[in-house]
């Protein structure tokens, strides 16, 4: 956590709503995306993220000074999104899509190569969408949000030693899903 965020948290703890607004602005995209990956609904994700930020504000007094804020927040976000998904009775499968626009710094060597690459990416995305929420979240935290093991442990609410095995299982299931799609 940067010193500026620590300072904002200290001010928010004293009741400065403006400081908290800055904290929210810095984390709103990540919180919304995590909530969306769990709930599968943009509307639910927005409300889950809002509710999570409100709960986090009320719980700031219990937040330990110097601890990383993002994983602590993401745990609250994930709970809120999970509750909404369960309340709505939605199935877990998530309709993920990749951006149409190809990264400009990596042009494909040929149309055939581009097609193969797009197919592979599509399979990976589809398999990711079929994972259960626990596995998908572990993959997203590690590879999409680049959380460290310690941060993942805090966000997932498990011991640091458990993170590796959990991630390993999630990757194995992801591979299995892709292989099953190939059959």
């Amino acid at each position, binding site marked *: 956590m940067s010193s500026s965020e620590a300072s904002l948290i200290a001010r928010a703890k*004293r009741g*400065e*709503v403006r400081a908290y607004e800055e904290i929210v602005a810095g984390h*709103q995209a990540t919180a919304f995306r995590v909530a969306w990956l769990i709930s599968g609904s*943009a509307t639910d994700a927005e409300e889950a993220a*809002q509710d999570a930020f409100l709960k986090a504000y*009320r719980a700031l007094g219990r937040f330990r000074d110097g601890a990383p804020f993002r994983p602590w927040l993401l745990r609250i976000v994930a709970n809120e999104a999970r509750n909404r998904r369960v309340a709505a009775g939605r199935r877990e499968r998530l309709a993920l*899509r*990749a951006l149409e626009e190809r990264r400009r710094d990596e042009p494909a060597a040929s149309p055939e190569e581009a097609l193969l690459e797009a197919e592979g990416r599509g399979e990976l995305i589809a398999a990711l969408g079929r994972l259960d929420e626990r596995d998908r979240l572990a993959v997203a935290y590690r590879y999409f949000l680049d959380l460290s093991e310690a941060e993942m442990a805090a966000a997932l609410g498990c011991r640091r030693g458990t993170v590796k095995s959990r991630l390993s299982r999630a990757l194995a299931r992801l591979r299995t899903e892709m292989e099953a799609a190939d059959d």
Partner: protein
Amino acid sequence: MTEFERRLGQLGGELEYPPTPPIAAAVTQRLGVDDAAGRRRGGRAWPLTARAALLCAALFLLLVGGVVAAVPSARHAVLDLVGLRGATIERVPSLPGGVGAWPGVGATRASTVESARRSLSFRPLLPARLGEPDGVFLAADEVRPPGGELLLTYAPRAGLPRSRYTGVGLLLSEINGNFAPGFFGKMVPRGVPIVRLRVAGNYAIWVEGLHQFFYKDAEIHTFRIGRTRLAGNTLLVQRGAVMVRIEGKVGLERAKAIAASLRPAPD
């Protein structure tokens, strides 16, 4: 890192997420509303910052100043303030006088929802099982909020008796709450219930009884008291960015059923 993990890392930057909504502004707004509610209940209020206090004071002065300037008899105070994105509700001791029911005020006719859609920044929501609306309107320029406002009317029928305030069986108004925060205003006198609830997981407020409804200018936040009119039972529901106002001579359960049946208009 394996090739598989490298591909996953790359994929993270290529996923198409829905656009992130303005959550920070909404959270700040809700913190202010809940803060006021906490003090009303006598519970442990959150710390009120100088900025929040100034905002409340400014809002109070705007409301009282605007009302008093336009309606001399309305020398009242705001007793309470609750709201959703796109709507603000004030509890007042009594309603200002000289205000009538003016159905259709500030609306211009559009032919269909599809044609109205071109003037709106949001996808309209339509109630299922009520059929096509009998009237489709857009807010006239002088009261048009940023992002536009859609008004749908449904003729009186069984289960939807004619409202003396709107002249129709059901009136639905929709705005983009992100673009026009606090645009729908309500003055609710003592004795008329204001109930906060959830409808299919969405935040909602139910006002049961006679109150006054007015538009606010969303850009400068002054009150268009000239557009104030009497209103009957109303359910306000926040569906994502869209604030829906459901007004009719119906009870809460019927209004909730209508709100729960709202579906995005076909593309």
